[in-house]
């Protein structure tokens, strides 16, 4: 499995997990954070299937969602599915790190989720 190149930040004072990075904790303004990498699978918090994609995408649609990892990191990613038929809020997702788009001819890597079950 490819490495998920995401770093979350857990506030050392209050424990709140941040992603993306903040210079001060959203809850307590603490400035000391413990770096976290995503742990295990994720649970689907929200999703949509987008048609009318922006410049840079040739697909007819993308399914995009936000997953929450077991250690509390919440991150957006592209969901690998042909339709929303089997997608449900709360379902388990297996993450991977793959090209999510191309910019200036180069692949841009990011988070993808494969629905389990």
């Amino acid at each position, binding site marked *: 499995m490819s490495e998920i190149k995401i770093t979350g930040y857990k506030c050392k004072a209050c424990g709140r997990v941040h992603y993306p990075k903040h210079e001060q904790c959203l809850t307590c303004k603490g400035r000391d954070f413990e770096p976290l990498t995503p742990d295990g699978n994720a649970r689907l918090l929200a*999703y949509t299937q987008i048609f009318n994609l922006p410049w840079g995408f040739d697909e007819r649609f993308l399914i995009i969602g*936000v997953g929450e990892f077991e250690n509390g990191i*919440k991150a957006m990613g592209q969901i690998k599915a042909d339709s929303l038929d089997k997608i449900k809020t709360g379902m388990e997702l297996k993450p991977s790190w793959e090209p*999510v788009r191309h910019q200036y001819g180069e692949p841009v890597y990011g988070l993808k989720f494969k629905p389990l079950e």
Partner: protein
Amino acid sequence: MRDVAIIGVGMIPFGRRDQDSLVDMLAYASLKALDDAQLGDKAVDAVYVANMGGGILQHQTAIASALVDRLSLLPAAADTVENGPASGASAVKNGVLAVASGYYDVVLVAGGEKMREVSGWRATDFVATLTHPEVEYPYGITLPGMAGMFTRLYMEKYGLTREMLTAVAIKNQTVGTLNPYAHVTMAITKEGILESPHSVVNNPIIADPLHLYDACPISDGAAAVLLCPLEMAKKLTKHTPVVIAGFGQATDTHTLQEREDPTDLKAVTLAAQQAFTMAGIGPEDIDVAELHDAFTILEVAESEHVGFFKKGEGGKAALAGRTKLGGEIPINVSGGLKARGHPVGATGVAQVVDITWQLRHELPEGRQVLGATYGLTVNFGGFGNNVLSLILKRSA
């Protein structure tokens, strides 16, 4: 702090304006506001220009400098305000602060955007640049996509239905047919966009569960208001002065995913509360509202978050006709962003123009809220990460 009045308003019809440049549109709307105000020999001290995309879409920056020159308002102070889709209300707020502080007497606020110059793909990409550049934008997320995720959560939590959202779309496009400034002047029907089997083509999904007619069009347009101290307004203007009774602004996390409850638009609630506190009134005192319905879901959610309805009741209220003209709180009697259009930098200013007309009692039958005294606007930036609310009052 001095009371600040709106003494002039102007707007040009929104839509596709191939013949006009961005600065042309801003200038035309500004001239209308200047004419409406009848300033006489009073000079404009400062100009605030709301614009989000000149740098990206027109490859033009320093729009305020261009506008003061075009209008020959030199040597007036001039600032461009870029605050995403909330640029308009941000510019108005800055203008109000400038006059209220006593530093400037006459301030022109103009908002404009020219979005139809580029393809729909480019326009969608342009608006998506307000998302987080590392953790959102690369995935192809769009503003309709954000709204789609939000809508599904709202449906799951509150039982909101497509029929309720459709009611908002039909209401706004119906009244939009009466607005000469509206981009979309075509009424739509429940049959055509929801009930008929042909609606799958008429009203396709754009970002599940949102459909084409849940979204505002991509528009060109501009609007302007002229502000001065209330005392000066009483001497200058033939109109009943409209004052800025309150304003509020709040921010929230850049990304939707970091909000504890992503269905809670905290910045909307806070902005409205600040505005109500400043005006010394509550939601029940508002006679007419212009809410930021870039998507039908936003009109519903904002109507709840500003306090017109309890959480989860906004969709039912729209379906029951409580937000129509003649209902208990008429919302978007201009047609809203849905019908008037959403040239992003112009929107917050256009909302103030429409509410000013309402409070002056200048609109024709079918659009005028009879006897309106207080009006409220919500200008929603990002996906709720930077929100302004303004309360306007008819000065007796």
